[in-house]
């Protein structure tokens, strides 16, 4: 039994269930990545693991107690979430936004403590935005802004952190930067992380534990080597692909099949370097 788990949970909205029955344990101290095609219920599962979406049936458990029965601030001290598409209020500065992450730990008449100061500074250092502290959020680039949001979630200082597609809208270098940050949080600081990611290869590289979902059900869960296989990619994503060892990390690397002969030849590359494929 792990700290955070779903037990026979039916998830969805009033008129439409997305997951009929999900049972999942989030391994403590691991970096879990949820993958699956669009509309497979990844985000729904992630939302239900915070207080955003109460299950229609079944239970979501935090330390063996129903998540939705616990006081809201108590949950927010244990489980954090970086949702998709958060809104930055007009004319807000980076530091004021990051400080909002301290909300579950602040009280009305004591709005600022040395712990708050240290947490806000630490979150900005970890995400490399300390130098932007006094700047307006509107003036920042997309990559910088996503790091600011990450800092808000980090300032919450929860042992469990959920990230809903944190790399969407980032260019590839910022994606890797963010995943490296997550890896550090997990490996160095021992946070339990759960992220929804679109890129299977990134999932395979960074995850300790992969959960593959399709049509609201969990198809497979386990270490990337055990989960990401040619048959799984075919059944979950409907994609014909080879899975080979990643030359850098040794993790499974998904390479979609190419049925058009050599790419370099088709695009007019130097012919003599390529053997005849046909």
């Amino acid at each position: 039994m792990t700290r955070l788990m779903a037990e026979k949970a039916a998830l969805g909205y009033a008129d439409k269930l997305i997951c009929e029955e999900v049972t999942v344990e989030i391994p403590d101290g691991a970096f879990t990545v949820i993958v699956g095609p669009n509309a497979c219920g990844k985000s729904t599962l992630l939302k239900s693991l915070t207080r955003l979406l109460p299950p229609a049936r079944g239970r979501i458990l935090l330390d063996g107690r129903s998540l939705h029965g616990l006081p809201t601030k108590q949950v927010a001290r244990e489980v954090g979430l970086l949702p998709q598409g958060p809104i930055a209020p007009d004319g807000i500065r980076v530091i004021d936004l990051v400080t909002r992450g301290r909300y579950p730990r602040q009280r009305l008449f004591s709005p600022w403590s040395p712990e708050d100061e240290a947490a806000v500074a630490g979150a900005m250092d970890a995400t490399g935005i300390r130098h932007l502290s006094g700047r307006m959020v509107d003036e920042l680039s997309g990559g910088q802004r996503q790091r600011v949001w990450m800092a808000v979630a980090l300032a919450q200082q929860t042992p469990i952190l959920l990230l809903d597609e944190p790399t969407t809208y980032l260019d590839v270098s910022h994606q890797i930067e963010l995943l490296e940050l997550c890896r550090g949080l997990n490996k160095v600081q021992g946070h339990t992380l759960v992220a929804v990611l679109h890129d299977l290869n990134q999932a395979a590289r960074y995850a300790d534990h992969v959960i593959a979902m399709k049509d609201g059900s969990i198809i497979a869960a386990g270490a990337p080597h055990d989960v990401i296989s040619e048959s799984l990619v075919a059944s979950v994503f409907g994609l014909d692909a080879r899975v080979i060892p990643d030359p850098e990390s040794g993790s499974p690397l998904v390479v979609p099949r190419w049925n058009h002969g050599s790419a370099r030849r088709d695009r007019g590359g130097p012919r003599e370097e390529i053997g005849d494929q046909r």
Partner: protein
Amino acid sequence: MTSLDFGRKVFRVGRRVRPFLIADVRSTVVCGALWIAIVALAVYSAFSGSAQITPGEALQALIGRGDAYTSMVVLEWRAPRVLLAVLLGASLAISGAIFQNLTGNPLGSPDVIGFQTGSYTGALIVMLLLGGGSAETMAGALLGGIATAFVVFFLSSKRGAVRGVRLIIVGIGVSAMLASMNVWILLTATVEDAIMASLWGAGNPSGVSWATLLGVFGGSVVFLLASLALSRPMRLMQIGTPFATALGQNVRVVQVAAIVIGIGLTALATAPVGPPWFIASAAPQIARRAVRSDRLALGPTAATGALLLLLADVLAQRIYPDSPLPVGIVTVSIGGLYFLWLLLREGKKR
């Protein structure tokens, strides 16, 4: 001790490491300046006017040594009117800030989305159809405003969640319907009654008594204090429901509390003297730009609202001393002009 860059000057109230409050220097200075202006204008308003009373005599009356006539003019007529303008201005401004924050839109303020029109409808029904006096009119306006708010929220909520743009569109629609109903009620009345009722509809604080002031004061202060306690949760809501929920906020509870406080403040501020239009939508926007803050700056907003309404009232009484204007006419002009200028300035920036 780490040192953080706040991007602006701040100071700490209370102990250095565990302060009671971290305040903005700019915001504090703006608030201070506004309140000095309010006090100066209040004194000017109490010491001058159409009655032939010198400032010396007025001062005597204020400290309780004036003659009967001067005391009546200064203490019974002018003082409650000045204080009421300050209180109502602050209440309307805070109510506007709450609704603008809730809808995330400067148009989502109670005067735009029909609450004040509803108060007017309530007042008209009591004044013209039921023939009630001033106390009954106040009650009618209070009920009218609250009922309208409920209708607007009911029509614009979907699965119990209130959405900004939907609320504004429904509010504008309801407001238009009520406005035509108001015209129809006015047309059924005799000319004298219709003029009286129209005067109320334009906001007319002449003849305000201490009894009215104290009645409104009790309710408004409770709501104003509640809005202060709610300011941090409301600021948190600006980053969207999912994030606010993940940060441990019970979003639904905060929304309902904010709505109740906002409706209460508007209804209370509209009932005694009729709707001073535009304070609720203009004051929060003016204040926010003056202190360069994110959307919710309650202190400066309240001060701006109070100053605007007081200024409007002073002007309304003095433009034509022989036939004072209803204050609502002046608030629309001042607030509207400033709002227009702000919008044009924003437009140029982009």
